[in-house]
């Protein structure tokens, strides 16, 4: 059923507007949010692969040149989109579940932000139109700012304003790049742009085309939080509520993947594009891990780790072989799951003991043993310990970099994985195993059951993907085969 493709965007958006409208009726919005959150992962499973043309404007053949062009905004739904939207749906469901269970009075505007963000990210993933992507990129940035500002952590407004000022430099640069592409190809549809480039209607060597590539690349760096934006992105993660941070990193990963695939389709014939991708991926890995090791705030530490892990995704795509692309996209999925688990786990600890400074924590394993084990396994998965999913994708990436003739990259990847492990040993020791400091007050409160449930589901997904990675890689390699 191809009609379901626009529904994936329309349902969360409508739900967001309704939630904001009825924001004073607590029961109603809780029920509506829960119902829609269940629907969101189901719709992509029911939908068929295909294209959807808004307004029914099917592609036309030009009388003059005989070239097919797309007059409508086009949504393309393929196996990769199915996978990512399904996973995003599951994360949204878990986040909404945690939220409506842990607060007596649900806030309509806050749920509005969550669902609007979901709609924007889904549209970003589906869209085949580069200007459409820009619109939802800006909406996603605004939603992220709203989610940070709605939290109760200190210094949130400062971080929000900094993020927006950065975004106001990154966003117009992206738009400028899109404008240049529009000027030299006359279209904003990615398929049309790719056609024009592949049939030499556009000179690949013209400085204007290269400038467009650079500007779009810069805008993409902002939205995905790679260096030089890694400091602000990790601050954004650490200033959001725990469940919201889990959602924000999923937004970031999907935005990264969708814009990266669009850029890859347009610019992959430029050799310098791959060099830039690999360069920034290595920089993100190195800076992310070295900053994570030196932090004392464990939320910030996970924020930097999440940024560093993004480097692995970009690395896979920058290597530009079929196997490497599959590995990179698989790593994206694993990172979404594992980082969500860690943000929820660490965030709930920070909420309970009212501090996130590892110098002031200790001895928590006696109080929260379940939480400790889940966080430990999550950390192992992110560091790449064998039977878990992080191991599978990192192994694939290392093999891919070896087979494409870059042994240095695989050594760097291994070193970064080891350092990630060190970060987890440090933070696990400081939080759970170290003797309890005298001034640490542990409230007589249990971990909310909904949080344990959400973490358990994410953990089961980690283990299943680690044991049977072919569930996911089949979908991805089908998509990658069409991309190359």
């Amino acid at each position, binding site marked *: 059923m191809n009609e379901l493709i626009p529904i994936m965007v329309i349902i969360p958006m409508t739900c967001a507007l309704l939630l904001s409208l009825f924001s004073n009726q607590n029961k109603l919005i809780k029920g509506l949010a829960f119902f829609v959150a269940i629907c969101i992962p189901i719709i992509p499973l029911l939908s068929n692969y295909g294209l959807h043309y808004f307004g029914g404007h099917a592609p036309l053949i030009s009388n003059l040149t005989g070239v097919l062009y797309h007059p409508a905004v086009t949504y393309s739904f393929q196996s990769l989109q199915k996978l990512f939207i399904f996973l995003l749906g599951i994360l949204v469901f878990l986040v909404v579940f945690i939220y409506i269970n842990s607060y007596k009075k649900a806030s309509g505007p806050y749920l509005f932000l969550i669902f609007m963000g979901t709609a924007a990210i889904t549209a970003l993933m589906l869209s085949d139109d580069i200007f459409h992507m820009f619109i939802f990129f800006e909406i996603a940035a605004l939603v992220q700012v709203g989610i940070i500002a709605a939290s109760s952590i200190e210094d949130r407004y400062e971080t929000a304003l900094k993020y927006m000022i950065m975004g106001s430099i990154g966003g117009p640069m992206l738009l400028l790049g899109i404008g240049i592409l529009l000027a030299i190809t006359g279209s904003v549809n990615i398929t049309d742009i790719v056609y024009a480039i592949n049939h030499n209607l556009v000179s690949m060597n013209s400085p204007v085309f290269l*400038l467009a590539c650079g500007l779009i690349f810069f805008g993409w760096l902002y939205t995905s939080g790679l260096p030089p934006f890694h*400091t602000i992105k990790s601050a954004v993660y650490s200033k959001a509520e725990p469940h919201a941070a889990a959602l924000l990193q999923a937004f970031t990963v999907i935005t990264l993947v969708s814009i990266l695939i669009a850029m890859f389709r347009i610019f992959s014939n430029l050799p*310098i594009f791959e060099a830039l991708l690999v360069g920034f991926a290595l920089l993100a890995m190195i800076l992310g891990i070295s900053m994570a090791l*030196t932090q004392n705030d464990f939320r910030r530490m996970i924020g930097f780790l999440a940024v560093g892990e993004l480097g692995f995704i970009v690395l896979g795509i920058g290597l530009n072989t079929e196997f490497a692309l599959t590995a990179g996209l698989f790593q994206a999925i694993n990172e979404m799951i594992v980082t969500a688990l860690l943000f929820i786990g660490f965030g709930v600890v920070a909420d309970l003991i009212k501090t996130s400074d590892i110098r002031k924590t200790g001895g928590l394993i006696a109080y929260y043993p379940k939480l400790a084990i889940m966080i430990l396994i999550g950390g192992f998965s992110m560091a790449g310990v064998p039977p878990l999913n992080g191991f599978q994708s990192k192994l694939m990436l290392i093999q891919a970099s070896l087979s494409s003739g870059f042994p*240095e990259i695989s050594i*760097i990847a291994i070193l970064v994985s080891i350092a990630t492990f*060190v970060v987890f040993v440090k933070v696990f020791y400081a939080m759970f195993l170290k003797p309890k400091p005298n001034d640490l007050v542990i409230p007589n409160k249990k971990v909310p059951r909904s949080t344990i449930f959400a973490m358990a589901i994410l953990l089961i997904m980690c283990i299943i993907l680690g044991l049977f990675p072919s569930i996911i890689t089949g979908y991805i390699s089908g998509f990658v085969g069409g991309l190359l």
Partner: protein
Amino acid sequence: MRFYDKLIGIFKSFKDSTSNTGVSANLTAELTLISTLLMACLLLRHINILLSAVILLGFAVVLLTNMPLIPKFKSEQDDSLNKMLFYVIITLGFIITIMYWGGNFV
């Protein structure tokens, strides 16, 4: 011998500010940073082997003589808007320069 003394001094300089775990984490960060950056320099051999050798040696000397790198790195990557904007603009300039003049050569 002098180099060894310097290294010991660096370990001690970490120690005064943080705890035991903090020292080991900072040391790991330091070693990871140096080794990965030097490894990344090796990638330049795909452009020119001589260039990569020269840059690798130069870089190694610079990194090892400025040894407590992590405090410098950390102070450069803090949350101040001015520092962030500085690096953002530097990166924008870098990308545009590389693209505009070097786009056809790599």
